[in-house]
């Protein structure tokens, strides 16, 4: 008898493609949230595959905190050009200028919360009714509770205590005017799956993900790269370290890990041996026990 077994990576790929097509079909104006992080890179790659040989039938939306590593922006623009995709940028910087949001003050200020309003504004402005995100359930305990198709009310809020049942692979994306959905095609992927897939698919990543030497400061136990946005404070000393990033986000809060892994294989070895979750290094999650849930309820990615 023929062997019709399908490896779990292939199953995950096939599931994600199914979700992406379902999103394109069920919504009028879907958009793919592109952060420049590895998960959104994988999601974009899957979107390319889902609609090949046609172009991706929805735009990519980048919510730009203004605190980017230049490598991220370069990578984004190259990718968009290569795919012939449509890029929309929602700028936190501009939201601050327009007075729609107010910059946090104090030593641990971050633009993380400001992203929420900027994102919601960008969704409203573009009249997007579904925003696809690269979030995975294995990342964080509140995300572990998320549906593939996750309903948001007219204020962009998530109601985790009253989610729609989601049965088999039948997705109900119906909603009232002004509401929207967040869709998570990578829900069932783990960090390891993402790395293994990128290796199997030869997906190119921004150089920041590989080990490189950089000036850093250590702040609240987190290694932050010194940049235009992160300057040493009193008492902090700038060191040179070999580091890489496990996740990519706002440069002021995304912590690096010390690492010599300069190839995909070495990174995979490191991921396999890791004793900390990849978000363990993010100052935004460290704020409180339910920091992620609170942000998600308010409309975060």
């Amino acid at each position: 008898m023929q062997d019709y077994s399908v490896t779990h990576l292939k199953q995950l790929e096939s599931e994600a493609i199914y979700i992406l097509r379902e999103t394109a079909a069920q919504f009028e104006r879907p958009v793919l949230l592109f952060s420049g992080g590895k998960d959104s890179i994988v999601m974009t790659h899957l979107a390319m595959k889902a609609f090949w040989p046609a172009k991706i039938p929805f735009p990519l939306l980048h919510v730009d905190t203004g605190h980017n590593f230049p490598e991220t922006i370069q990578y984004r623009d190259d990718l968009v050009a290569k795919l012939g995709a449509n890029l929309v940028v929602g700028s936190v910087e501009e939201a601050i200028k327009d007075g729609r949001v107010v910059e946090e003050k104090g030593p641990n200020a971050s633009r993380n919360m400001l992203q929420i309003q900027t994102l919601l504004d960008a969704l409203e402005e573009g009249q997007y009714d579904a925003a696809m995100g690269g979030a995975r359930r294995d990342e964080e305990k509140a995300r572990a509770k998320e549906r593939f198709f996750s309903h948001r009310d007219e204020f962009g809020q998530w109601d985790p205590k009253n989610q729609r049942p989601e049965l088999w692979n039948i997705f109900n994306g119906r909603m009232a005017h002004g509401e929207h959905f967040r869709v998570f095609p990578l829900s069932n992927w783990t960090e390891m799956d993402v790395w293994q897939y990128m290796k199997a698919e030869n997906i190119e990543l921004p150089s920041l993900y590989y080990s490189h030497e950089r000036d850093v400061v250590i702040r609240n136990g987190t290694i932050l790269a010194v940049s235009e946005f992160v300057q040493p404070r009193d008492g902090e000393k700038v060191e040179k370290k070999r580091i890489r990033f496990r996740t990519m986000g706002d440069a002021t809060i995304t912590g690096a890990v010390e690492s010599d892994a300069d190839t995909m294989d070495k990174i995979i070895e490191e991921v396999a041996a890791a004793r900390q979750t990849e978000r363990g290094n993010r100052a935004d999650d460290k704020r409180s026990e339910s920091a992620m849930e609170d942000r998600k309820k308010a409309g975060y990615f």
Partner: protein
Amino acid sequence: MSTENSSPEKGYLDMDLLRFTTAGSVDDGKSTLIGRLMYDSKAIFEDQLESIENTSKQRGDEHVNLALLTDGLRAEREQGITIDVAYRYFATPRRKFIIADTPGHIQYTRNMVTGASTANLAIILVDARKGVIEQTCRHSFIANLLRIQHVVIAVNKMDLVDWSEETFNKIRSDFQKFASRLDNIVEISFIPISALKGDNVVDKSTNMPWYNGPTLLYHLETLYVGPDANHVDSRLPVQWVIRPHSDQYHDFRGYAGRVAGGVFKPGDDVVVYPSGFEAKVKALHTADGELEEAYSPLSVAMTLDREIDISRGDMIAKPNNPPTVGQDIDAMVCWFSDKPLNPRGKFLIRHCSKEAKALIRDVKYKVDINTLHKIEGDNQFTLNDIGRITIRTASPLCYDSYKRNRVTGSFILVDANTNETVAAGMIR
């Protein structure tokens, strides 16, 4: 009927996957068990452990509360119960697992069904002190209805009954009596455990020398779970039509979807339902090149040798074993809405990629969860009721029985006013 996997050590890329769900009544220890399973198999990260240790300490718990690993919502932590499904992922050298930890409280049955609908195995917990109770029966019945073929009855909290073999045996025979009426379950195993202390979860218990069976993890790692997919009846529900509008692919029309059964090959004769138009498969495209054959659950784009009108909601199949095409559906449903189901009620039905208006024609019976007897003549379904109904759809569906195909045999009902999903249906 459990067979062992011959080669325990596999590479990451060719490991097989087992999806399982927890079930059982509130407080029987489901979340604690999943926490224990992951903790003892070293699948917990240091920062996760630190966080639940801190929370446990703050709350003045005696032990580190491992349920906090899956009870991730604030309300869950405050109330000490699970409200919605948590998905957890872990791998041992033998297998990869996707776990759905579901709530036991009857109010959240729909979330339990959500978690169970994609599982191949259910661990049903029973509190050794309480034995088989209504919620145990309800969840077992739902698992059976969803055709989860493998069930583990984990008799938990054995530490609270002095590790009594007699208690375990009594629960086993009680459950077996009840289960004799659950016709879809292929295999049931019974394991006495203490999720709190770890007995027989990953490590063998020293408190129950009378038990000679496997630990829970060993059972999950080695159980033979046959292929879930149907490789006989070829089905491709069309999700989306790919039209590139480029010079290179000017005439390309790819019917995109995930194969829901059977096998398609280039050159195969196919029929498009419900229209009945015939064609031959020209090619099976993916971005990585053309496939020689496509089967479940692969996502592909099919091109045909002639132009016919095909759109989302259509089903491509083969002429020798077509799906049933019809507007009258006979199905078992689980009702999820606070608003009762009324005969003659109108809904939207979603089946594969198709949506149609639907009318409840008749309630045949409801099921008494404790006795599994049919209740006839009471045709009002309220929250969490399960029973058999008939539906008339405004346009034809192309379906199979749920027994034959989990994808083409399942549907949901949606309330068009509130957009809520109000029922899960399994076609007879």
